[in-house]
């Protein structure tokens, strides 16, 4: 399981509001893809998926105010080994 955290957004930014989920619980995501948007003051910030896998839990929902470092979601990481990936690509 890989937890997705709200990253540091800058000095003095202690919290942000979850403003938009690009995916629903159960969705398959790829590393680096758009996962969730958070807002602070006049800024939106896209938190990307830290790994490829399946979003098994959305912890913070749209409208929730969350602190820096809080868990936003949990992803079950793909367990496809490199050899399997090579086989798929062959």
């Amino acid at each position, binding site marked *: 399981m890989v937890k997705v955290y709200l990253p540091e957004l800058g000095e003095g930014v202690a919290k942000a509001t979850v403003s938009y989920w690009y995916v629903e619980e159960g969705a398959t995501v790829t590393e680096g893809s758009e996962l969730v948007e958070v*807002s602070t003051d*006049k800024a939106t910030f896209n938190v990307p998926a830290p790994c490829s896998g399946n979003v098994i839990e959305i912890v913070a929902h749209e409208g929730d105010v969350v602190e820096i470092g809080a868990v936003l979601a949990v992803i079950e990481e793909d367990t496809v080994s490199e050899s399997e990936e090579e086989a798929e690509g062959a």
Partner: protein
Amino acid sequence: MAYADLPLKVLNLGLIPYAEACNLQKKLVEEVACGVSVNTLLVCQHPAVITYGRRCGHDHILVSENEIRRRGIELCQTDRGGDVTYHGPGQAVFYPIFDLKKIGQDLHYYMRMLEEAAIAPLKEHFGLNAYRREGMTGVWIGPYKVGFIGIAVKKWVSYHGMSLNVGVDPEFFSLIKPCGLDVKVASINDFFSDEVQLETICDMIVEQMAHVFQFEVTGGSRQW
């Protein structure tokens, strides 16, 4: 904060539809994020458009959608931060596509620097008492808001940005509750008897933006 002189490309897009500018920004964000493009500053004006962020309250647009369209104004939802605002002719719009990882990686510092890029020239060149208000992001002159900020950040690259009213018909702002607040809105030209050219202000803000972020303007089109 001090950074090495990073190259900055400035592109003047002239009068460009809002959606077209958004598409160009998203393309540039990907290019800047992977290092194919250098930091790029887009400068433009838009045909009349009311834009609103995802957090915008529906009661912040004060007239019906039909009425807005009847007046020839577009209506667009956007992914920037902030509430509802208006763009139109007579307003200078700045879209910095900057790699924030190289300039502090700090959303609020970045927005303060955008404000500074507008405030300094308004004070120094025009003698206006422009200032920022704590907790009220934007550029103010007296009780009036003249500059508006709403940004988005993806892969730590910024897009959307700042607009400054130079000579905007105030009637348009009466259709909305700008930024979701009860604020008075004005244009730079409201403070002078002689009209200030939008191009002159754009040039000064581009210079100041390069200065505050310690960028070196190296390319692009600077013909306003």
